[in-house]
């Protein structure tokens, strides 16, 4: 921590909040307390300005025009690709495929890699804590190929049961698709260990990094993971843009996902030959300015330093966990030893939906529901939880407001 501080100076959260125009908004006359970062993060001025600048000064379609603006827009988009590559420490720029979001990235791999590689009886291994977007695409390809889905369980704390996972990885395992951080519980999954075990039997691994990349530095080469996906909007960038990282050799061997412009080399009615990476997987005009905005978000995070952000959020999570645990009738759902920035809980006698409405009137934004992770809710026999998820701009005062809001909930429901 001291070395970090020396490099960047102290983590000045008040100054950082000034980078996010929306944090000055008031909700029902109260200051906005935004604790729904796991659903989507707010945008710093650097991202908003980059988007405006792209539209105002360097916008045209990419990769085809010979004219000045087309070249500028192409350069801007490809420079964003390099930033993503650096961010993930990928070996090559063309291993970075721009997609709409993590959902599209997973669907792309399930459909393209899955159709080419899965045979009846082949196994896809998931975990209980996957987001629906890392379940449903695999069910779709299972139904098309006759593959089988296996599910590694979690324990009462919401940690992955590694012995069970190890037992489930076997000679028929072809794909292990697992989240890096659980969106409903905050559990950090030991993906390096999982990747080693999967590779030992020749299986490929896809990591859903949506909830991880805003908090944990990722090095896809050190991890040796085959596919890694994340969404831009959870990383303080725009929605509608996301990233699929894949090892070049795997991506090259995979058939295209969608057909159209940009992804071709030559087209006749008899035969089409496809473009090389990354364009083979980027049919149609991409979200050009979205990519530019994502690049700006990555640069912004770099300026703060991800390890410092992680340290700040870790401190907030510990503080919030301690304060909530001290409240009567609160049950924290997900107490894995390693967690990131997410605090899921229930309150005896009050449905999460009612808690969400009452907190909302206090200006506090939390998520209530099943968090697109119904198997997790079933595992804990809950219909829903309240989820507070922290971002780089949240403060201890905001945790105090959450605690005061919960006291208000209890007051209303006690009457």
């Amino acid at each position, binding site marked *: 921590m001291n070395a970090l501080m020396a490099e960047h100076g102290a983590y000045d959260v008040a100054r950082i909040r000034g980078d996010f125009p929306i944090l000055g908004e008031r909700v029902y006359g109260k200051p906005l307390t935004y604790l729904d970062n796991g659903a989507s993060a707010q945008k710093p001025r650097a991202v908003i300005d980059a988007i405006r600048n792209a539209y105002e000064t360097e916008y045209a379609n990419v990769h085809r025009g010979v004219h000045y603006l087309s070249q500028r827009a192409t350069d801007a988009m490809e420079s964003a690709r390099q930033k993503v590559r650096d961010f993930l420490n990928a070996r090559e720029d063309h291993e970075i495929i721009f997609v709409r979001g993590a959902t599209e990235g997973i669907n792309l791999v399930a459909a393209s890699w899955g159709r080419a590689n899965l045979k009846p009886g082949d196994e896809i291994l998931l975990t209980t804590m996957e987001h629906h977007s890392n379940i449903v695409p695999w069910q779709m390809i299972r139904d098309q190929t006759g593959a089988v889905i296996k599910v590694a369980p979690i324990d009462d704390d919401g940690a992955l049961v590694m012995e069970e996972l190890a037992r489930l990885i076997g000679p028929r395992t072809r794909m292990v698709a697992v989240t890096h951080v659980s969106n409903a519980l905050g559990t950090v999954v030991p993906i390096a260990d999982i990747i080693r075990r999967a590779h030992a039997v020749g299986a490929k691994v896809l990591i859903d990094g949506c909830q991880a990349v805003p908090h944990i530095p990722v090095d896809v080469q050190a991890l040796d993971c085959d596919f890694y996906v994340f969404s831009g909007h959870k990383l303080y960038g725009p929605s509608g843009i996301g990233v699929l990282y894949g090892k070049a050799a795997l991506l090259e061997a995979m058939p295209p996902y969608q057909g159209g412009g940009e992804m071709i080399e030559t087209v006749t009615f008899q035969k089409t030959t496809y473009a090389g990476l990354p364009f083979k997987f980027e049919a149609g005009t991409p979200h050009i300015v979205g990519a530019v905005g994502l690049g700006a978000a990555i640069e912004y995070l770099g300026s703060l330093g991800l390890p410092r952000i992680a340290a700040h959020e870790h401190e907030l999570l510990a503080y919030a966990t301690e304060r909530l645990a001290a409240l009567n009738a609160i049950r924290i759902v997900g107490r894995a030893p390693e967690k990131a920035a997410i605090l899921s809980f229930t309150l005896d*006698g*009050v*449905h*999460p*939906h*009612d808690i969400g*409405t*009452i907190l909302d*009137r206090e200006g506090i934004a939390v998520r*209530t*529901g*099943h968090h697109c992770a119904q198997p997790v*809710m079933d595992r804990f026999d809950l*219909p*829903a939880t309240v989820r507070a998820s922290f971002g780089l701009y949240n403060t201890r005062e905001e945790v105090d407001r959450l605690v005061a809001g919960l006291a208000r909930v209890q007051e*209303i*429901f006690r*009457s």
Partner: protein
Amino acid sequence: MELRDLYQDVILDHSKHPRNFGTLGPPAFEARGNNPLCGDRVTVYLTLDGDRVADVRFEAKGCAISVASASMMTELIKGRPLEEVRALFSRFHAAVTAKNAPDAANLEALDGLAALIGVRDFPTRVKCATLAWHAMSSALDGSGTTVKTE
């Protein structure tokens, strides 16, 4: 609009002590309602006596608004002619989804449901208040299918 207008005592009371909670066996009509967004689930059971609701029960896992609305509904429709039940549902549905607040005459026509009108100012909660009613209506139509509000 204050929170107290939404969480009135009568609503909290029904949510904590739901009336007519339970099931009815065959030949009762039965229909489920799901709100996939928040996980609210309600099942409504009812039997008919000619063109009247003879008995009605419900089971629910849900928020205070959806449970209270279901409970209040069962009290209101038990023993009532189907025609009145359908008319009450359409008045209630119109009132909670209308742009303008209901006037005194409309409130009067809502019987005991006026307490639920507060959801109008909480648009994300309107579907909680109407879930059981949609399920009841589907049970009456005999379609017995699962209703979703989203």
